[in-house]
């Protein structure tokens, strides 16, 4: 029966995959955001050399397809004697890719903050690092939040590429099942629904965060 297939085959497999997908997304999104903040800040206020490095990194990872980045990490690095587990290769690839995009949002947000505030921190005796940590970045994050949230939502979906380098997550589990039972329509509709739920929940959480961080003068009232 149809219900048997859904309850006994499809859902257990997809739930198993969902867990793997979450294991990919959570560290990639959080570490990737940190990378984005660090690189974005360095690209605006860093030493000229650091700026160049940051620009180069962002240019490289925004300029090449993620699949190629994953292939290089998983299939290419062994040529140099570096062997990464599929999971590690996937998370590393996602962090590097999402970090590059996040740095762009953070950079834009930092540039939108009036330079006068930086002068004020200097006049009060802040070091550049202190000024970044306590004044510039907290404001930039608030301004960048809609963009950064958008990137996290992208990440939720492109995490499906991990199955290409043999890390069987939600999409991978589904594809195996679909091939075995030749039920592509039902399985892929179900997978799509799982992603839709994840993205909706993430969107809800991000909106909540935006409200929590709301300060008069930033975003809408």
């Amino acid at each position, binding site marked *: 029966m149809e219900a048997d297939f859904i309850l006994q085959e499809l859902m257990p497999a997809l739930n198993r995959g969902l867990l793997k997908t979450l294991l990919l997304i959570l560290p990639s999104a959080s570490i990737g955001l940190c990378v984005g903040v660090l690189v974005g800040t360095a690209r605006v206020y860093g030493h000229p050399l650091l700026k160049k490095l940051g620009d180069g990194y962002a240019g490289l990872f925004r300029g090449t397809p993620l699949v190629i980045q994953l292939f290089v990490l998983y299939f290419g690095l062994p040529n140099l004697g570096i062997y990464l587990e599929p999971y590690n290769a996937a998370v590393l690839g996602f962090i590097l890719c999402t970090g590059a995009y996040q740095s762009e949002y953070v950079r834009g947000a930092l540039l939108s*903050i*009036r330079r*006068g*505030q930086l*002068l*004020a*921190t*200097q*006049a*009060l*005796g*802040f*070091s550049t690092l*202190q000024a970044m940590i*306590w*004044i510039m970045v*907290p*404001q930039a994050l*608030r301004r960048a939040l809609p963009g950064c949230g958008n990137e996290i939502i992208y990440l939720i979906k492109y995490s499906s590429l991990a199955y290409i380098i043999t890390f069987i997550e939600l999409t991978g589990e589904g594809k195996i099942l679909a091939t075995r039972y030749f039920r592509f329509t039902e399985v892929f509709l179900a997978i799509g629904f799982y992603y839709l739920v994840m993205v909706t929940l993430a969107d809800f959480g991000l909106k909540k965060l935006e409200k929590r961080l709301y*300060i*008069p*003068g*930033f975003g809408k009232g």
Partner: protein
Amino acid sequence: MTSVETRPVLRVERICKKLGGKQILNEVSFELRKGELKVLIGPSGGGKSTLLQCINFLIPPDSGRIWLKDQEIHIHRKRDLYAYRQKVGMIFQDFNLFDHLNALENVAIALRKVKKMAKREALERALQELNRVGIGDKAALYPAQLSGGQKQRVSIARALAMDPEVMLLDEPTSALDPELIGEVLTVIRNLAQDGMTMILATHQIGFIRGLADEILFMQEGQIIEQGIPLDLLTAGKSSRTQSFCSKLHELSGEQEL
């Protein structure tokens, strides 16, 4: 004004600055003694703002020397520079409050993060300073919720909380609506009467007449006239300052404050 010592608090000697190939400051020197209020006036583009920003190295001067009390300041010794800037309060034309912090936190943040004061102590001190400039009741409001005059008073409180030896005020009322200028000038007058050492760039001639110890008239990067207000501003004196101020009078019908 009351307790003028002989030893200068701030000494600035032969500051030069070129920006974009143009000589903005040309060998500017002056001294400030404790409790003195000196006023920088002169046409826009004359170098007033650049001079003030050179004094605390927000714009590094090309050459020249600066002493606070007896200590010469070297821009390359970062630690000394940060310590020096804490002792030199700066008030900007456009306030430059931290937009993500409320009035109280705007004043407290440097106490906590730069002076490493405990949070509670810093907040208490911040509230004292807000009360001193008359806006203790606005402590919880964010910059976006304050008027220009209130913002400028918060920024004065923020500078005062650092216990500065000297304050540099860069046209503190130029960005304000006319009806808000008075409240900021009142705060500055009180500071002067309490003996704060200050250098003030302004166009509020009426205000400085009774308050300034000395007027420095700046034009094309040089102090071309200096003296007490009585000498420079009295009608009939043929000073460059007097003619500049008469023009301001004619243009604005300047109100006495």
